[in-house]
């Protein structure tokens, strides 16, 4: 049989994520992307592909996360900002970095091989509108530059009990 873990592990996980995403001075960064959702390690290995090759639709920093039981959710949001490219957002990256502007650099804005600071956490998950259960949810996943500044509706997830 598979190992049985007590539900406390889920709360531990949620707390770890919250700590990781809220520890940096500038809070967490959320970026929205089109296409097929990759893995987190794939994003790290191909950072420029996902962030500087036309696969970046929207990015904003300044998010802080909170926990409630086994849930982690964005509790403080950055100010709205316009998309950088037209497209349908299907997946998101959430990470805690020193500066959200660094997403357009050629390599990840943090050390990818060792943990030496709080801001080296990265999570990849789906994007949906508010009727779905995406890690990040929007009022509409169809993003346009012409539509002006937007902000996500919410972000977070609940670890299964």
């Amino acid at each position, binding site marked *: *049989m*598979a*190992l*049985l*873990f*007590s539900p*406390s*592990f889920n*709360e*531990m*996980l949620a*707390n*770890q994520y919250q*700590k*990781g995403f809220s*520890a940096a001075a500038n809070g967490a960064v959320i970026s929205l992307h089109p296409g097929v*959702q990759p*893995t*987190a*390690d794939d*994003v*790290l290995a191909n950072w420029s592909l996902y962030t500087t090759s036309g696969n970046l639709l929207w990015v904003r920093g300044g998010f802080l996360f909170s926990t409630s039981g086994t849930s982690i959710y964005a509790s403080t949001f950055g100010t709205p900002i316009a998309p950088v490219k037209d497209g349908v957002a299907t997946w998101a990256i959430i*990470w805690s970095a020193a500066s959200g502007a660094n997403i357009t650099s050629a390599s990840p804005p943090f*050390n*990818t*091989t*060792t*943990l*030496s*600071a*709080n801001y*080296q*956490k*990265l*999570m*990849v*998950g*789906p994007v949906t509108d508010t009727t779905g*259960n*995406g*890690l990040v949810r929007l009022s509409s996943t169809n993003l346009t530059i012409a539509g002006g500044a937007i902000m996500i509706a919410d972000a977070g*997830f*609940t*670890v*299964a009990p």
Partner: protein
Amino acid sequence: MATITFSTPFLSSTGTQTSPDAFDMLHRVYGLPNANVTTTFAPPSTNSVFRPFFDTWGTNRAAGAIHLMKGTVPSNLATLTTFSSRASDVLATWNTAATSTLDLIVDPSAVGVAYTTPRQLSISTSYNAATTAGVATWIWLVCRNTTSTSVVGDTVYHSIVGTVGVPGSGADLIIPNTSIASGKLYRIGGMVLTVPQTFTY
């Protein structure tokens, strides 16, 4: 069902940490010999959520233990609410109690050092004598409440339960012979827990 993945460093024990990661969920290390992991993570003693599973250093050192068990394998953890639950089925116990030599060795240098083996925790034990004879059927990793290195309680904070069997059985823990003799010395040579990287919710 949505799937999220986490970067390997998030779940790695590699390097010197200043923040808790998944490894700290299982184990807290403060300057153990040859340990490559140091952390300032100090779980509140009154908060079970933040208490690492195997705490082999500091005031919570007595918290972690492994029971080798006989009898019916529990299908859930509902009946394992105290450290002494199923006490009559305990064949042998290894723990992190306040003795000069730890029964339970949670070794961050054995795995997780190389980036190729992240998210893993190696567990081995010293030899302990079995206290009861019987056929080992399951293993219970348990964390209980403590207020010092010598004062232990009976309240269970975290549990992991797995099956025990002989090679080829497909059990979670493989041992050469499941027939345990009382008074005979046993040890766990190498058990690895791997924290998953992909979760669904």
